[in-house]
């Protein structure tokens, strides 16, 4: 570093820009739901002590490799589950949860939701209490008293989720010829995630594994 250069940068850029920040107006703009979600997620991640270890794709990939070797000798999770690739995804496994995200150079998938998938199983006893459709993701939350089903359809390249896999054993479930990952978490909720070739479908419910598999099999394209 050169002191003269540094002094010039301070006088010519740093001081004016710090002043620009001080005098900038505080906007009353209402931030979009997508922005808010993205930011909340980032802030939550930043709070994780291990975030610096997983904050880039390369580091996450390294975590997967390390996790593979560690788990292969500690049998925390099923070896079978880890050795079977999760199509176009990186799965990072931690002691109390797993993170799944799409590969940056994954396959040729739609960039936004162009076809809509829904559960076609008879859910007339349920009420849809929340439904949200965005460019990249749709969420539908069905509720019937204590029972709920949470359905999402996400653009493959935007898929990124944390899963509560503490003490869970991952298993592979056939959903109409497609391999889905399934697990029962410690809140007694069963989750199924699969890539249907176009989008990621993710269903979570407390109605039990077998019933949820039946519902998962009914997911079909309903609108283009």
């Amino acid at each position: 570093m050169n002191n003269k250069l540094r002094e010039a940068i301070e006088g010519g850029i740093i001081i004016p820009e710090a002043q620009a920040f001080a005098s900038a107006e505080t906007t009353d703009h209402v931030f979009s739901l997508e922005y808010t979600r993205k930011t909340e997620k980032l802030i939550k991640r930043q709070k994780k002590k291990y975030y610096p270890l997983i904050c880039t794709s390369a580091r996450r990939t390294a975590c997967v490799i390390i996790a593979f070797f560690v788990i292969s000798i500690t049998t925390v999770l099923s070896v079978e589950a880890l050795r079977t690739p999760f199509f176009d995804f990186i799965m990072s496994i931690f002691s109390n949860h797993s993170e799944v995200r799409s590969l940056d150079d994954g396959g040729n998938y739609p960039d936004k939701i162009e076809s809509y998938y829904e559960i076609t199983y008879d859910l007339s006893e349920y009420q849809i209490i929340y439904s949200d459709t965005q460019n990249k993701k749709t969420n539908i939350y069905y509720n019937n008293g204590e029972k709920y089903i949470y359905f999402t359809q996400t653009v493959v390249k935007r898929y990124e989720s944390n899963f509560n896999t503490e003490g869970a054993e991952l298993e592979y479930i056939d959903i109409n010829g497609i391999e889905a990952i399934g697990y029962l978490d410690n809140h007694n909720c069963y989750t199924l995630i699969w890539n249907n070739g176009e989008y990621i479908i993710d269903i979570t419910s407390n109605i039990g594994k077998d019933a949820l598999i039946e519902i998962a099999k009914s997911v079909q394209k309903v609108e283009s």
Partner: protein
Amino acid sequence: MLPMVYMALVDDEDLPAFEEMYERTHKKLYSIAFDILNDHQLAEDALSDLFLRLSLSFKKINNFSLHDLDAYLVRCIKNTCYNVINKNDAEKRKIDKLIKNSHIKSTAIDNSIFDKIELDLLKKVISSLPEPYMTALVLKEYYDLKADDIAKQMNISKRSVFYYVKAAKVMILQEIGGSDLNE
């Protein structure tokens, strides 16, 4: 119980610094971004991208004084807006390519040459540098960041960081008659 249980997996006990910085600054930074981009969606995208990049090297920037941090955030949001505006700008790529093929690569610069320049003139020239060159120079020469951290923040390669910093210095010297200074 909502199935959002997934998200209840984080440690809540520490490191509120990033969140504090976000809460303190995001509305002002949004205003700055909107003034540049004049589009709410683009301004949100720029802000979102900025904080994602800040999160990648937050440990480092969290050590800055408040004054330096505020200036850093303004510099970085301006650079992010520049990237948004020039995302598909073929003209910019053409200029970058032209400069990359120029003599800059082979130009050796001794930093002591800047000691010979009058301070006010140096300030004036630095503050008129084109966006990416100015940001790379400031992050390197004022904040003393490593090329890795600058690359993450500017969303460019490490090699480009070295290039931009060097090119910025060449531009300064050319603007004020570097050849005379060398004599």
